[in-house]
C-alpha cells in the first residue's frame, strides 16, 4: 500500500519544483537538438540520447583528470580555479561531440536522407545500440562518477553559495547554475535562428531545401552543421548532468531519448520554444513523480503527453518541420 503524503512541506515543494526545472533544463538541451535535427534534416535520430550519454561519460574522465591534478577548493581562489577547471571539462566534453556527431552524419546518415523513414529509424536505432556498446567498452557497465575531491563529490565541493540564507531552503548551487545554462541555451538558440545569418540559412534549408540549393546553400554542409550542433548541446547537457552528482550509466541515453520524445511532442515538433516549455513541464512532472510517487516516474510525463495530444494534437507550439 502506498501512502500519499497528506501535505507537502513548502520547502519540499520548492525543492521538487527546482529539481524539475533542473531536469527540464537538461532535457531541453537534448530535446532541442533532436527537434532541430528533425526539423532541418527530416530524420528522427534515435541515437541522439547517446550523445548525451557520451557527454556524461566524457565529463567523468576529463573531470577526474583535472580533479587529481589541482588543489581541492578550500578558499575562494582555489574554489574559483576548481570551478573553472570543471567548466572547461564540461565544455571539452561537449566539444568532443562536435566531430563525433558531424562524422556520424556525413558517413552514416547522409546516404539515407531520401530513403523511407523506416530505414532511417532502423539505422539510427542500430547506431544507438552501437554507441551504447561503445560506452560499455570504454567505461564499463557500472555507473561512473568523476573522482572525489577530498572525499566529496564535485558538486558538493562547488556548492558553496549559501542557498539556505538566500532562499530559505537548501539547494545545490551547481543545479541552479545548470538551470541558468539551460535558460541561456534557450535564449541563444532563439537568437541564433532568428538573428544570425547562419541560423537563418539553416531555417531556409529546413523550409525549402531545393529553394535553398537554388540560392547556393550546400545542404550537406548545413545538415552536418546542424547534426554537430545537436551533438554539442546533448553532450553539454550530459556533462552538466554528470557534474550534478548523478552517476553516468550506459542506459542514461535511452531514458533521455524517450523523455525527449515526450518533450518535443508536447512542444510541437521542430519548435525551440515548444521544446523549452515542454522540457520544463516534463521535468517538473517527472521530478514530482520521482519524489512523491516513484512508480509513476515514467508514466507521469507520458500521461502529460497524452493530455496535450488530446487537447492540442499539434503540440503547444505546432510548427511541424519548421524551426521557430
Amino acid at each position, binding site marked *: 500500500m502506498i501512502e500519499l503524503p497528506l501535505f507537502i512541506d513548502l520547502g519540499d515543494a520548492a525543492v521538487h519544483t527546482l529539481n524539475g526545472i533542473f531536469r527540464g533544463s537538461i532535457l531541453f538541451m537534448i530535446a532541442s537538438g533532436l527537434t532541430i535535427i528533425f526539423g532541418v534534416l527530416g530524420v528522427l535520430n534515435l541515437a541522439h540520447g547517446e550523445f548525451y550519454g557520451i557527454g556524461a561519460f566524457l565529463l567523468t574522465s576529463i573531470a577526474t583528470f583535472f580533479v587529481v591534478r589541482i588543489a581541492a577548493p578550500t578558499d575562494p581562489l582555489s574554489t574559483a580555479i576548481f570551478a573553472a577547471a570543471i567548466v572547461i571539462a564540461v565544455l571539452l566534453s561537449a566539444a568532443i561531440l562536435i566531430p563525433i556527431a558531424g562524422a556520424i552524419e556525413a558517413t552514416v546518415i547522409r546516404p539515407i536522407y531520401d530513403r523511407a523513414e523506416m530505414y532511417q529509424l532502423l539505422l539510427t536505432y542500430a547506431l544507438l545500440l552501437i554507441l551504447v556498446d561503445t560506452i560499455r567498452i570504454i567505461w564499463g557497465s557500472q555507473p561512473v562518477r568523476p573522482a572525489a575531491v577530498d572525499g566529496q563529490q564535485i558538486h558538493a565541493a562547488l556548492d558553496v553559495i549559501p542557498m539556505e540564507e538566500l532562499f530559505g531552503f537548501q539547494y545545490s548551487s551547481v543545479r541552479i547554475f545548470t538551470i541558468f545554462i539551460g535558460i541561456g541555451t534557450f535564449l541563444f538558440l532563439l537568437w541564433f535562428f532568428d538573428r544570425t545569418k547562419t541560423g*537563418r*540559412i539553416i*531555417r*531556409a534549408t529546413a523550409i525549402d531545401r*531545393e*529553394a535553398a*540549393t*537554388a*540560392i*547556393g546553400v550546400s545542404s550537406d554542409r548545413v545538415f552536418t552543421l546542424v547534426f554537430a550542433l545537436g551533438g554539442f548541446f546533448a553532450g553539454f547537457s550530459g556533462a552538466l548532468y554528470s557534474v550534478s552528482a548523478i552517476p553516468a550509466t550506459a542506459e542514461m541515453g535511452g531514458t533521455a531519448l524517450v523523455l525527449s520524445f515526450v518533450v518535443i511532442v508536447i512542444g510541437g515538433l521542430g519548435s525551440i520554444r515548444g521544446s523549452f516549455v515542454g522540457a520544463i513541464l516534463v521535468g517538473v512532472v517527472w521530478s514530482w513523480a520521482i519524489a512523491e510517487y516513484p512508480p509513476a516516474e515514467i508514466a507521469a510525463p507520458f500521461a502529460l503527453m497524452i493530455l496535450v495530444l488530446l487537447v492540442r494534437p499539434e503540440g503547444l507550439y505546432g510548427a511541424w518541420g519548421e524551426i521557430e
Partner: protein
Amino acid sequence: MSDPLLAVTNNKATVEGFTVTHGVDLSVDEGEAVALVGRNGAGKTSTFRGIMGLTPLAEGSVKFKGEELTELRPELIPVRGIGYQPEGRDLFTGMTVEENLRLPIWTSGKARGVEDEDAMVESILDLFDELSHRRDTEVQNLSGGQGKMCAIGRAMALDPDLLILDEPLEGLAPIVVEELKGYIQEIIDRGISVLIAESNTSHVPDIVEEMYVIERGSIVDNGDPKELTKDPDIQELMQGGGN
C-alpha cells in the same frame, strides 16, 4: 557566331527512374529573352530543374558560358550566374521579404562578387516598388503577385547573367500579369538574359524574342514568338486538342 550563354542539348531528365524529358534542346544568347511554352505537365519545370541540377539527367548536357553544369554540385550553379525562380514561389516562410532577398547574398554573395548587400537589396526593391513598402512583411502574408515579385527578386539578388523564371505569371489576375510583365521587361532591358516558362502563349510573345514549344517532354517547335502563336497547330496543342 559566338557560343550561346546557355546551351541545353539532348536533356533527358529522370524523376524516380522515369524519363520525363526526351532530349530537350534549347539555347539562350547573351541578353536574349526566351520563352518555353507548353501545357501543364509538358516538361517545362523538369527542363528547368535539369538545368539547375535539381533533377538528375540520364543524358544530355547543359553548358553555361561554355562550362558544363551537369558536372557541378547543384548549389554551385547559382554562383555561376543563374538566378532561378521555382514554380509556385517556394519562398522562405516565416521570414520577411527583406530576409528572403538577403539570404542569397549571405550564402553566395561573395562568390558572385556582390560587394554591397544593402545596395543590392535596395536596387531590387526599387525595381519592384510595390514590394518596397512590404519589406518587413513575412512572405506568407504577401499577395500572389507580391509573392512572385519576391521570388523573382530573390533570384536577382546574386546579380545573375541569366534569370530562369518558372511560370511567373501563373495564377495571377490579368492586371497583375500586366504589372509583372512590365517588371520582367525592365529586367530584360537591364541586359539580363531571361528564360521564362509559360503555359499561356498569349502572355509572352511581346516580351521575348524566341519561343520554344514543349509537349510530352520534347521540343516540338521553336522560332519567332509572334509567328508561332498564330500557328493553328500550336494553338490547338496549347488548348489541349493535340491528343
